[in-house]
């Protein structure tokens, strides 16, 4: 059956294959105002179809890894993103709302994607679980759901599909806030790349000792499967933040050799393009000078980007150096320009059993913005939706008018499930909106705690989805001065908060036997007393006159109170 299907596809795709398979790589350096440097590797492959390639063209020209694409194709995946993040992106210090790669997810790991659905929900769920398990194997990480209930289905509007209409696609999101990007995840990532970390830019990345010493790290892939009309695309990214300032202070000057321990690597022969980009910051010089410098709208700011073509003959082995003119000792700026929108989530009033999420949305821009803020909680976080309050920083006045509407999908405790909450907000200009959401932590059974229960449990990042962005225009009139800002001219639609570690009230794990025994004892005591009271008969006992007095003395310890002097007494006797 499958062979038949493939055979019918061959003529159409054979033509496409020759033209549409291509590989592009880029390394972007982005100096941040706090003396750090964001380094982003991007590897993009366009491809026609995975199965045709794997069965017919097992040659080294083939650029797409079948191990990645086959499970996706078999399970009807249309689009899929896997993202791992370690460390925290500091929005205030970096002056940017998030890492340079916009598809980077929130803290920890996450898998999300669109599945072509035929209306059968159980079948789609099965396919999604299968694909997450397959990718988990690929990335050496538990990406599959630990329970069916962990899957979030209400985020389709937050991650709209690149292709196709949402009506015949199903969106799935599986957050794994406790996952941590580590060395084991890098090797599989490199092996997915056609250059395998041996040549081209990937060979700079294939140095775990170097890249894992950086602060913030983000790794991920985004796959868009091909359809009848357009080829597929898969892109892998790796981003890290390097501290440029030496430990004892000094200049920020850096070079490729200083960061990676080597110069421009041997080019990967199959790469169609291979570029080094620098987002030029003020007063920056470079050697050799970039052959191409142009202005570009990137993340709401018009910036100058310098570009080197690494495929040019003579580039191999060279170093590229960067420095700030006249800078001897880097002085950390006293004030940092904040990103136009930033989000900070904290837990206040953190009792062991209760707490309040306080989310601060700062809008530094001069116009008010519309956005959706979304949260995903595990089942044991019970939010009090009726107590959500909004105010603008600096005043105690309630501003419920800034909350346009909300959509709430509660979990079903105590089965593993998730609560998702979407708040449609208006972020007023030049002010900070503070939203507080009180919550209670439900008690977990002792078997449901993680092995390191005292440490707490991470909950996924909150996501602010901006509704009024207009993208980054490609062609720009030349009279725009550098550094101009327009907060809405960005392709970054989602801003993530940090993940949170919540303390969970724990029972005493050594107590099950004691509790069972003691509670059962109390119950048995109660039952015994009741049974005694009910089975004993209370009544009047006639005793012969004369004997009454004499017997009473002996009876007294075990039986009742004498009520009537003489003949009769109230006595209890077992029946």
């Amino acid at each position, binding site marked *: 059956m499958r062979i038949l299907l493939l055979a019918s596809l061959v003529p159409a795709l054979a033509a496409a294959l020759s033209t549409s398979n291509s590989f592009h790589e880029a390394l972007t350096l982005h100096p941040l105002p706090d003396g750090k440097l964001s380094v982003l590797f991007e590897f993009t492959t366009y491809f026609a179809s995975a199965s045709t390639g794997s069965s017919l063209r097992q040659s080294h020209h083939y650029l797409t890894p079948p191990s990645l694409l086959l499970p996706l194709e078999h399970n009807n995946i249309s689009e899929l993103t896997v993202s791992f993040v370690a460390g925290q992106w500091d929005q205030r210090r970096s002056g940017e709302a998030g890492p340079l790669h916009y598809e980077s997810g929130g803290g920890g790991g996450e898998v999300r994607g669109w599945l072509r659905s035929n209306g059968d929900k159980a079948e789609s769920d099965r396919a999604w679980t299968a694909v997450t398990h397959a990718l988990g194997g690929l990335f050496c990480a538990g990406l599959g759901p630990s329970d069916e209930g962990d899957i979030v289905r209400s985020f389709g509007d937050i991650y709209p599909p690149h292709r196709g209409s949402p009506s015949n696609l199903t969106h799935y999101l599986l957050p794994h806030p406790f996952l941590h990007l580590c060395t084991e995840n890098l090797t599989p990532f490199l092996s997915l790349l056609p250059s395998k970390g041996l040549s081209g830019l990937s060979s700079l990345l294939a140095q775990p000792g170097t890249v894992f010493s950086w602060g913030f790290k983000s790794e991920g892939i985004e796959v868009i499967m091909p359809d009848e009309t357009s080829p597929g695309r898969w892109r892998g990214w790796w981003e890290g933040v390097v501290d440029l300032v030496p430990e004892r202070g000094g200049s920020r000057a850096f070079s490729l050799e200083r960061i990676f321990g080597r110069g421009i690597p041997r080019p990967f022969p199959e790469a169609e393009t291979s570029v080094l980009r620098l987002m030029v910051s003020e007063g920056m010089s470079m050697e050799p000078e970039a052959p191409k410098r142009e202005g570009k709208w990137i993340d709401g700011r018009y910036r100058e980007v310098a570009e080197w073509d690494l495929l040019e003959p003579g580039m191999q082995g060279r170093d590229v150096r960067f420095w700030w003119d006249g800078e001897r000792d880097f002085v950390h700026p006293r004030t940092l320009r904040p990103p136009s929108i930033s989000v900070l989530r904290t837990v206040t009033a953190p009792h062991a059993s209760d707490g309040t999420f306080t989310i601060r949305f700062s809008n530094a821009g001069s116009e008010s913005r519309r956005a959706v803020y979304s949260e995903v909680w595990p089942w044991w976080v019970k939010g009090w939706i009726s107590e959500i309050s909004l105010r603008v920083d600096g005043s105690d006045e309630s501003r419920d008018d800034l909350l346009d509407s909300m959509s709430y999908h509660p*979990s079903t405790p105590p089965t593993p499930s998730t609560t998702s909450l979407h708040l449609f907000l208006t972020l007023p200009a030049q002010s900070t909106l503070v939203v507080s959401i009180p919550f*209670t932590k439900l008690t977990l059974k002792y078997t449901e705690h993680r092995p390191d229960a005292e440490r707490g449990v991470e909950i996924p990042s909150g996501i602010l989805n901006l509704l009024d962005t207009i993208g980054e225009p490609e062609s720009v009139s030349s009279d725009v001065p550098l550094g101009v800002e327009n907060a809405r001219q960005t392709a970054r639609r989602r801003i993530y908060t940090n993940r949170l570690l919540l303390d969970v009230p724990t029972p005493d794990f050594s107590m099950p036997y004691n509790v069972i025994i003691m509670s059962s004892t109390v119950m048995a005591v109660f039952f015994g007393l009741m049974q005694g009271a009910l089975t004993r008969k209370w009544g009047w006992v006639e005793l012969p006159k004369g004997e009454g007095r004499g017997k009473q003395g002996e009876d007294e310890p075990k039986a009742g109170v004498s009520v009537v002097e003489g003949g009769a007494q109230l006595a209890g006797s077992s029946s």
Partner: protein
Amino acid sequence: MTSSGLVLIAGVVLRLTLFATSIPALLERRPELSTPLTSVRSLKEGQFILAQGSDPYAGGVFHHSPLYLLLPAVPLVYTLADAVAAATLCKIAKERKALVAAVYLFNPYALLSCLARSTTTIDNAVLIAAIGAAGPLSGAMLAVASHLSLYPVLLVAPFAVRSRWSLLAFAVSFSGMTALNTVIFGHSWMRASWGVILTVSDLTPNVGMWWYFFTEMFEHFRSFFLGVFQLHNVIYVVPLCLRLEPHIAILVLVAVFSTWKSYPTLGDAAAWAGLLACYPDVVKHLRHPLFTLTVHLYTFILLPLLHSLWLLTGTGNANFFYAATMVHGLNSSLAVT
């Protein structure tokens, strides 16, 4: 009558005065006074979700009976509920009516759970009204009480012994209400309200002995012990009805399930303490009246203290609160028998 009227007025005035202070806000979230099934916070949440146009029983955050969705959670309603309960108790009592009313209205458990706006207060009022009413009306009231907190359903047998008609009235109104709720909300409310009472799926700490037991329970014994704990409430119904007069059987059953229900609060103890006061001859025959009273005082102090040690400051652990609930449970058991 006038003296009991005075007591009623004093109790109402005291409640309304205290409602005007900041005390109720402190009490609202006390786990001793309200469980997730009776707390005013959950109730407001459910009413809010309903007002938003969603089904409050979708998901598993709202456990109140659907009847409560109609209840305005204002202080006056709770005060009136207590007044109705006290007035009914006066009717049940044959002598010393003022004392009976005072025992209920100035019982700290009743007073505090009223101030905490725990729906236990309403449950108690309906239950006491059912016990005080006669004939079919009592059956209908019992149906409401059972709807609200399920356990009063155990009183059907003694009620039926008291009056055949009440059994019929109970059956009709209970099934009527169930049908009506099902028409409005579908089946979800049953799992969310009664289901939680029966399966103890919400393990938020309370004064009962269930929550820690089932937190610590081995997974494969859970359903067995659930059966044991629930049946333990049921087994007393028949012997008590056989051995005791209906009104005493009702009294003892109320005591049994106020101690052994899956989500008890201190307010539940108030209902049976109030009923007890109506029958002075029973009070005379209590085994350890002084001892149980003083231990009640002791746990009354211990419970909030150890709870805050574990869950608020995080210095103690779960066993602290468990120990306090054990003492409370054991003591309530002693008081009953």
